[in-house]
C-alpha cells in the first residue's frame, strides 16, 4: 500500500524526469521563442519540485524571477535581434 510519503517521492521523481526533455528541446530547437516556452515548462516543473521539497520562500522568488522577469527580458531581446537561429 502506498503511503503519502511514497506518493510525494514519486511526484518528485516524475517532475524531475519531465524536466529532462524540456531541457533537451530548449537547447536543441532552432526557434528561440519555442526555446523560451520549453524553458518555462522546465521552470514550472522545478517550481513543483521546490514546493515538494518544503521551500515556499524560494518558490515565491523563483516564480517571479524565472517565469516573469526572464521571459520578459528574453522576449524583448528576441524582438530586437530576430527570432530564428542561423542553421
Amino acid at each position: 500500500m502506498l503511503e503519502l510519503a511514497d506518493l510525494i517521492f514519486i511526484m518528485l521523481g516524475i517532475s524531475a524526469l519531465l524536466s529532462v526533455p524540456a531541457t533537451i528541446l530548449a537547447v536543441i530547437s532552432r526557434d528561440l521563442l519555442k526555446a523560451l516556452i520549453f524553458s518555462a515548462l522546465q521552470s514550472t516543473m522545478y517550481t513543483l519540485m521546490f514546493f515538494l521539497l518544503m521551500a515556499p520562500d524560494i518558490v515565491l522568488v523563483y516564480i517571479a524571477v524565472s517565469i516573469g522577469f526572464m521571459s520578459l527580458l528574453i522576449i524583448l531581446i528576441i524582438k530586437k535581434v530576430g527570432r530564428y537561429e542561423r542553421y
Partner: protein
Amino acid sequence: MESWVINFLTIAMFFYIASFLLYIVRLLKGPTISDMVLAIDALGYDLAAFLIILSILFRNPILIPCSIVLTLWIYALDIYVAKYLEAKEMSE
C-alpha cells in the same frame, strides 16, 4: 473524519498527475507557438489548484501564497507572448 478527508484527497491527486502528463504531451507536440502557450496556461492554472490540495495534505497554511503568485505570473507570460506575436506582424 481526518482519515476520510486525507484518503479522498490522495485519490484525487492521481487524476491530477495523469492530466498533467496529457497536457505535457500536447505541449511537446504542439505545431505552433499558440498551442504551446495554451497548454502551458492550462498546466499552470491546474497546478495552482493542485498546490492548494497539497497544502491541505501537508497541514500547513504557509504554502498558500505560492499558488497566488503562480497564477499571476502565468497570466503575465500569456500577455508577453500575445504582445510579441501581435506587435511583430501588425506594426513595428
